[in-house]
């Protein structure tokens, strides 16, 4: 058995080592190097790149990323819970409604982000409709701000919230709600005091599944935030392209990866469950 297993695992071991481990190791190393005069990176080793993370200019972007990702995640909980509740209580059409939530997730993320540009920009649908209705004379600045970014993030990651909440609702024993009703609880207070607390694991899982990609988002803030609402992902991209400061970009990449890793580790430890 062991020989077969060795050969079965060999390609993925090689792939992960060469195309994932080595690149991350290189970036980690670059984070400790000094930026060359014309870009590039060279010795001596320094911790200056990591020290620069505390620079107010970059710290603002870091904190802003946390704030926007947190806000988007909170909105996903608020919007996702009632939707999951609706699906869980929709009887025979449960599967249809669940598929309707997942369908946009399967279509292109880029196209879905572009759809919001189409709706929100100055010459976009919302402004055009409002203007031809005579409600406004100048287009409203809907695109290229924090709100547009948060809308895009919620739109992109809401399905990740609905799914785990739905599956905890499914596993909920209906007898608990009957017991609550027998003891005199009205439906609303049973929802608040029985269903909601018992769905917490689903909300925690969904929040993690939302917060992690939101924190590292690049495309959404780039397209919907323009240059005005940038997040840490955009800062990294910028360091590797136009700013040509790979050592600092590497330090930022590492900081972001480390944060995400701690979140994942905390989650797996608490949940004691694995996907693999």
């Amino acid at each position, binding site marked *: 058995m062991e020989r077969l297993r060795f050969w079965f695992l060999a390609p993925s071991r090689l792939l*992960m080592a060469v195309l994932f481990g080595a690149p991350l190791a290189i970036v980690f190393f670059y984070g400790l190097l000094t930026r060359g005069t014309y870009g590039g990176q060279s010795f001596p080793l320094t911790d200056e790149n990591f020290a620069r993370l505390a620079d107010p200019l970059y710290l603002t972007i870091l904190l802003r990323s946390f704030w926007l990702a947190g806000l988007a995640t909170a909105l996903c909980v608020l919007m996702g819970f009632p939707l999951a509740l609706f699906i869980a209580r929709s009887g025979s059409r449960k599967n249809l409604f669940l598929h309707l939530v997942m369908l946009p997730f399967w279509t292109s993320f880029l196209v879905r982000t572009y759809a919001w540009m189409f709706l929100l920009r100055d010459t976009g649908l919302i402004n055009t409709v409002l203007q031809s209705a005579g409600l406004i004379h100048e287009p409203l600045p809907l695109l290229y701000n924090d709100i547009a970014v948060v809308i895009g993030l919620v739109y992109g990651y809401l399905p990740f919230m609905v799914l785990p909440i739905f599956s905890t609702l499914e596993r909920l024993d209906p007898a608990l709600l009957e017991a609550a009703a027998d003891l005199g609880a009205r439906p609303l207070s049973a929802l608040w005091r029985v269903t909601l607390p018992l769905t917490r694991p689903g909300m925690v899982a969904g929040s993690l599944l939302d917060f992690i990609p939101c924190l590292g988002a690049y495309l959404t803030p780039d397209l919907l935030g323009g240059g005005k609402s940038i997040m840490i992902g955009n800062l990294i991209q910028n360091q590797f392209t136009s700013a040509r400061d790979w050592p600092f970009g590497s330090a930022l990449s590492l900081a972001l990866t480390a944060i995400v890793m701690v979140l994942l580790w905390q989650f797996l430890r608490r949940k004691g469950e694995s996907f693999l």
Partner: protein
Amino acid sequence: MKRLLPLYATFAYAFLHLPLLVLTVFSFNSSKFTVWEGFSLRWYRAIADDPQLMEAAWNSLLIAIVATAFATVIGTLCAYGLWKRDAPILKGSLYVSLVTPEIVTGVSMLAFFQYLFRFMDVRLGLHTVILAHIAFSLSFVVIVVAARLRTVDPALEEAAMDLGATEWGAFYRVTLPALVPGIASAALLAFTTSFDDYVITSLVAGVDSETLPMVIYGMARKGVNPSVNAISALIVLALGVLILGAERLRSDA
């Protein structure tokens, strides 16, 4: 409560689906502006006549097919190996690659390729994009196939081997057939993520390997262009047909 919940659900589904529907409707608009003037296929003709776009679409298709084939085979073998016995380091690295932000994966691959190219006479191109796509879709494939493996009874293989099957025979003729639906879902996921990826691709693509998402991104940044609506509608349609077809196949099986 009884009336409020369906009302809210209607609003939520509108939020999820209206943007793409409106986008599709306006891809048939004869005007260049966001005002409805009449039905027309001019934007579809415009994209069919755009050689740059057609080449990019072809590139995207080629990358997605090759990357999916490799990732699905390697990932299935990996899930099976992990099912036999745990391999903590490999498993850990798959988890890490799953949650690493795309932009970080992208820049680290860029740094890696640039480093390699100092010693080799190679440049960024379709091959680097394909390698990157295989690497980032591997963890999806392993997770989906592993989920399917959890429904397989290990005693079946033992029985097959008691009856004289080799290890390979037990895998190939007993467990693998039971995994087919999971492998198909995994391949579909790998294909759609590869076909759609912009962030990693744009960093490791060369001058001659522009993909469809890269062209769409460029057009979207430039400003109003209903052609983007038309391509978007086609992508949504193509992926939708693919997903629904796969779902139909799975429910038949």
